[in-house]
């Protein structure tokens, strides 16, 4: 086994375990921290896949901004005392069965899909120069349109978040 393959399996095990941890952790703060671990492993996959720029952005946006926001809100509400009312076991069981069925159906469907091998070695499509060219040439309209999305999110945070 080559080094990337070994790294893949190590990261895969860590990410699955920490993702399960996010779901089962009783304390929301633990969920946030485990989710950050998952995000770091996903960053590792991005590097393995030669998406260097995305890896950096992912760390900055997810671990740096979004999860900090989550932590702030949780601490603001003082939720770390684990007083979450639990769903009854039947609902939980049904939820696990539904999710498991989704997994099985998708796996069964995709097992037949044609398998290809990822190209060995590095490519330069994930470099900032290449991505910048694509983003500002082919994808310039979505880039502009997403500003509307941000404006409405901004209005929303003010309209909803402000005390009357």
């Amino acid at each position, binding site marked *: 086994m080559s080094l990337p393959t070994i790294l893949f399996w190590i990261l895969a095990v860590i990410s699955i375990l920490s993702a399960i941890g996010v*779901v089962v952790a009783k304390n929301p703060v633990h969920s946030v921290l485990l989710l950050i671990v998952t995000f770091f492993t996903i960053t590792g996959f991005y590097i393995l896949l030669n998406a260097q720029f995305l890896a950096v952005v992912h760390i900055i946006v997810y671990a740096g901004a979004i999860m900090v926001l989550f932590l702030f809100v*949780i601490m603001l509400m003082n939720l770390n005392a684990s007083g979450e009312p639990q769903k009854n076991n039947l609902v939980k069981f049904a939820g696990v069965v539904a999710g498991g069925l989704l997994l099985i159906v998708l796996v069964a469907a995709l097992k037949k899909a044609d398998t290809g091998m990822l190209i060995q070695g590095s490519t330069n499509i994930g470099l900032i120069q290449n991505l910048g060219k694509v983003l500002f040439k082919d994808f310039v309209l979505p880039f502009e349109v997403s500003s509307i999305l941000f404006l409405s999110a901004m209005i929303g945070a003010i309209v909803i978040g402000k005390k009357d």
Partner: protein
Amino acid sequence: MPIQNYIWLSIALFSIGVIGVLIRRNAIVIFMCIELMLNAVNLLLVAFSKYHHDASAQIFVFFIMVVAAAEVSVGLAIIVMVYRHTKSVDVNILNRLKN
């Protein structure tokens, strides 16, 4: 490294996120599970980007991050608003009030 490994991995992460949404009642944890689902999709898109040797999937991942950031700001504002009035982030707020 076959592309299938990445497909299995991201489908597994996606399903764990779905299970989390279905079994938890804390709105913040549900929201985190949704973030997990989006990240599974991001991972899949990056893997396909390398497979097809095409940068547009990586650009798509950018936009998913953009939308996730916007959604988080709105979503946490909604959760804080609910918390202010009910002192709880349980998704069944009205059921809780009836009891």
